[in-house]
């Protein structure tokens, strides 16, 4: 089957190694075992846009993600009701643990002496515009969607018990792509977003003591908007000028080129470039991102009363005043 490249979005992340080397761990009870209690942080709104970077921190962000489909019109014309699509998640620019890749599955506990494995992973889910999971995900075996029955244990993709997301299964090492099938919902669902995140694991600390951990890995995450075929185009994003996505990036590049072509004089063109660069600095800060700005140390005058006291003491001791940017003190009140 030929898979057509559709969307390529890469964002940086942070973190440690493949903390969940097997897909089953995403369903395990986190109080009793090394599990996630049914959460696969795909970057979807229902998980506060969290990705694998919640654990795999301080990653360099050198890897990328590519999402492919057997029907490339999925990403151009949109999804069609009840249509099943064969998707492929591709980890690009794999670097962490890449030296271990050559060993393939010939690694791990069964090898004497122990040899670390190149364990990579992913998570994906499909949401409608309200943030609800839509459609049905199934794994792929022998290039065919497993629409009935149970997939064999060595399948490379696992679906969460509640069916909401797909993850790696961990059956094979050195994986940089995972195949799965997604059946679109019925008509009228509107625009859908594919939330996908990948981890490039480095094989833990290289020893049998810690075959996996959450350090030294790399993470990428992205969101691919998919319109509904035949439906009206989704409204443009509002509320800020930091809209992500290739479409917005392409539009921005188009505007820049149009302005530069229209402005012929060198000085005017330079001014236009500076103006456009300034405009690019505009960003919409969300309330939850204002914690640092709200800190006391970020204010020029964090405590006016303290400033008044400082001024008062300065006047008393040095016979001078001013310089604190606040009123107060006064004469004769020592």
């Amino acid at each position: 089957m030929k898979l057509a490249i559709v969307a390529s979005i890469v964002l940086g992340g942070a973190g440690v190694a493949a903390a969940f080397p097997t897909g089953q761990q995403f369903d395990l009870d986190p109080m009793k075992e090394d599990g996630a209690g049914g959460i696969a942080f795909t970057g979807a709104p229902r998980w506060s846009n969290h990705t694998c970077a919640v654990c795999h921190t301080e990653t360099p962000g050198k890897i990328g993600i590519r999402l492919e489909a057997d029907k490339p019109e999925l990403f151009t014309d949109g999804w069609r009701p009840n249509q099943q699509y064969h998707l492929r998640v591709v980890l690009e620019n794999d670097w962490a643990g890449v030296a271990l890749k050559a060993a393939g599955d010939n690694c791990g506990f069964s090898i004497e002496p122990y040899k670390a494995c190149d364990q990579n992973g992913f998570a994906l889910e499909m949401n409608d515009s309200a943030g609800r999971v839509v459609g049905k995900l199934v794994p792929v075996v022998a290039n065919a969607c497993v629409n009935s029955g149970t997939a064999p244990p060595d399948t490379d993709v696992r679906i969460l018990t509640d069916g909401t997301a797909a993850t790696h299964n961990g059956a094979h090492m050195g994986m940089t792509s995972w195949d799965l099938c997604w059946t679109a919902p019925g008509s009228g669902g509107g625009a859908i977003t594919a939330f996908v995140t990948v981890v490039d694991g480095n094989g833990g600390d290289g020893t049998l003591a810690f075959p996996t951990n959450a350090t030294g890995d790399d993470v990428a995450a992205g969101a691919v908007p998919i319109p509904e075929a035949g439906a009206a185009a989704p409204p443009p994003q509002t509320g800020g000028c930091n809209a992500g996505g290739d479409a917005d990036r392409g539009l921005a590049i188009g505007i820049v080129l149009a302005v530069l072509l229209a402005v012929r004089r060198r000085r005017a063109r330079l001014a236009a470039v500076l103006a456009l660069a300034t405009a690019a600095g505009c960003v919409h800060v969300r309330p939850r991102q204002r914690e640092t700005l709200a800190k006391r140390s970020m204010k020029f005058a964090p405590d006016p009363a303290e400033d008044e006291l400082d001024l008062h003491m300065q006047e008393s001791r040095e016979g001078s005043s001013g310089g604190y940017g606040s009123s107060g003190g006064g004469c004769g009140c020592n």
Partner: protein
Amino acid sequence: MYRSRASGVSAMILLVGACTTVANEAIPDPATKLDETVFRCNVEPILVRQCSYNGCHGNPAGPLRVYSPGKLRANRPTNIDDAIAPLTEAEHHANFRSTVGFGVDLAVDDNPLLRKPLPAAAGGFEHVGGAIFSGNSAGTSDPQYIAIHDWLSGKGVCK
């Protein structure tokens, strides 16, 4: 002359009358107000499932430090078996102590454990991890919110 002296004496008496002893008493231990058994049943599983990740509250440097299997442990594990072992009694208790330290003298609805993870529209604020109680636009009907609210209110029951 006598009038001004009387005024001075009156002022002195008033000033002396303003003197008082300010007690520097310790506040009650918040742990005594909250049920640790209910915490372990109803609240700790929420914190471990939602909050214990390394980049979040599974970081010893941050507030509301949460120990959990496979992530942050009280004692540095020497191998992965130790790392993923169930929490010890000491770690359970440490999670309780870490949690009860949050604004126990505040009204329950204003407790940061409840307020910060709410959606902004429902009064949530400054939570770096965003809205966690996002089951609906209000967030206050999220089962996790209700469980923590009940515990802080002393109404929680360990089932």
